[in-house]
């Protein structure tokens, strides 16, 4: 259940960004979350609602999640493939010398601020 910890980090970063930009109210926070980042979207949504509503800056603010696909690279044949579908084994050559190129992101993309 690390989603709550992650949410606390998001809130800390967002508060800092709000201060730097002179923002007093945020309507949404947009996250980029990789498919294999081990974040469970439903859990993070629950944690978000609970924690965000305790902050004046974020009361009622929506958490929007962009899911980024996971892609692995095969050192043997140099091809890329979908990690979630094929796992550690390269579907092109059957080799297991593969590593993750992207898909474990937990990134705050942007915040949305209501225009006054």
């Amino acid at each position, binding site marked *: 259940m690390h989603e709550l910890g992650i949410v606390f980090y998001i809130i800390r*970063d967002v508060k800092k960004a709000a201060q730097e930009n002179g923002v007093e109210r945020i309507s949404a926070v947009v996250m980029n979350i990789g498919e294999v980042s081990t974040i469970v979207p439903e859990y993070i949504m629950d944690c978000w609602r609970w924690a965000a509503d305790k902050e004046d800056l974020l009361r009622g603010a929506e958490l929007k999640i962009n899911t980024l696909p996971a892609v692995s690279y095969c050192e043997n044949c140099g091809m890329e493939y979908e990690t979630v579908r094929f796992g550690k084994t390269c579907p092109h050559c059957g080799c297991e010398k593969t590593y993750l190129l992207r898909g474990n992101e937990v990134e705050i993309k942007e915040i949305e601020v209501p225009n006054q």
Partner: protein
Amino acid sequence: MNSVKIIEIKKSVFEDNNLDAEALRKELKLKGVFLLNLMSSPGSGKTTTLIQVINRIKDKIRVAVMEADIDSDVDAVKIKEATGIPSIQLHTGGMCHLDAEMTRQGLDNMPMEDVDLVILENVGNLVCPAEFDTGSSCNAMILSVPEGHDKPLKYPLMFSICDVVVVNKIDVLPYFDFDMEKCREYVRMRNPNTRVIPISAKTGEGVDEFASWLLEAVKNWKKH
């Protein structure tokens, strides 16, 4: 219809913690204090292993322990009673891991000038502690025989960040379908540089090897 203004942030959630951890690691290096981050699932025998190891090294280097748990202080008390070394308990306030800031707060309560090695017993969990760098000099984890040799496949991140994997409870190997060679192979798949040390904290078998590794690591840390 432009009712919303967008402010781009583009920042990893782990970035601040990674920076805090890097700063803490540098500071500890300057002070000559080695921080071992010890992780495992609950019930793998972390505390029993620690007592065995500490009793083998406490005459050679100055050791202190920080126990991190969600609640209670049973582990800190147990360590203090069994080894006589300073031991403090940190509560994570419901969180499933320690981060660099919490680790620093814990270290602030330690006699840092009189310590060579601080062992941080992280919250029992194979997922979250792997994601949050504590600022440690080395990461170690304990995997116990009843958990099975396939754990490195199920928790890849944890195994990929560990310098040492201690396989505990080898005294019960005859009763479980635990394949030590498979385990070594799976650990190597995650991190070819990880050292695997089989031990039994109960009988003491293999603990000397873990203790020697730790003494050597502390020595090297203090050297440069």
